[in-house]
């Protein structure tokens, strides 16, 4: 389902980034990096709007011809970015939201781990397993 998953800290450096086709990794890194600007735009736009409710899920950030990029911001300004294959048209908004919710839960578990220092790269095996289960099973 997901082709690349990234967790970005509030200071905009990556805490965790992983993509499935391991060649062309740089391309995904670059996409995630450029999507950070879009995330910032959306967050500041929401801040200025007079709507009382502010959602954590940001939705589709931008589509390219092969991929679609989705974003999610937590209350602690940690951003989750997910790159999905465009040819996978069966993916609906609800599924993306539930994937982000799982990511958020796993990230919270990592934070609560006393052996984890906030700000380090995420090395938890449990987190890795969860992300693997979300990534595409390329046949």
């Amino acid at each position: 389902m997901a082709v690349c998953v990234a967790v970005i800290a509030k200071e905009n450096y990556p805490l965790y980034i992983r993509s499935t086709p391991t060649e062309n990794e740089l391309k995904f890194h670059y996409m995630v990096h450029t999507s950070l600007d879009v995330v910032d735009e959306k967050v500041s736009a929401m801040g200025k709007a007079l709507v009382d409710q502010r959602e954590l899920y940001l939705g589709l950030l931008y589509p390219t011809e092969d991929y679609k990029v989705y974003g999610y911001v937590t209350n602690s300004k940690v951003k989750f970015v997910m790159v999905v294959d465009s040819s996978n048209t069966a993916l609906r908004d609800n599924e993306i939201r539930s994937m982000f919710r799982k990511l958020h839960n796993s990230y919270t578990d990592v934070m609560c781990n006393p052996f984890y220092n906030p700000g380090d790269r995420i090395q938890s095996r449990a987190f890795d397993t969860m992300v693997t289960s979300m990534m595409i099973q390329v046949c």
Partner: protein
Amino acid sequence: MADAVLFEFLHTEMVAELWAQGPDPGPGGRKMNLSVLEGMGFRVGQALGERLPQETLAFREELDVLRFLCRDLWVAVFQKQMDGQRTHHQGTYVLQDSSFPLLVPMASGLQYLEEAPKFLAFTCGLLRGTLSTLGIESSVTASTAALPTCKFQVVIQQP
């Protein structure tokens, strides 16, 4: 509710243990132990600041974050809400609790007033840690005029 009491006992033991470790009579030993307690509270606050607001929507401004501290954080840790919150001037908030659960079993009045600060250090760190995860750098100090009332003063560092 047995759960609240478990944390109170753990906290009492933490303070007793960290206090007893300073065999040197100079004031240097004492201050170090208080900052250890505060550091522990900070790390716990960081984790809580990630887990507690998980289902709530994003915070729009500082006041929202302070309100979250007084209500949700206090209820989660002490099973009651904080009584009062006042803003003094730009960036300084005073949070008041008229019967702070960690001080209630000690005394009610002026007895043991000098002992109170070390029981408040962990909670100061807790507040500072939660604020730091939510994006606000601050410094938190606590003061007691009479047990079990206590005031936490939060000074937000302007960037």
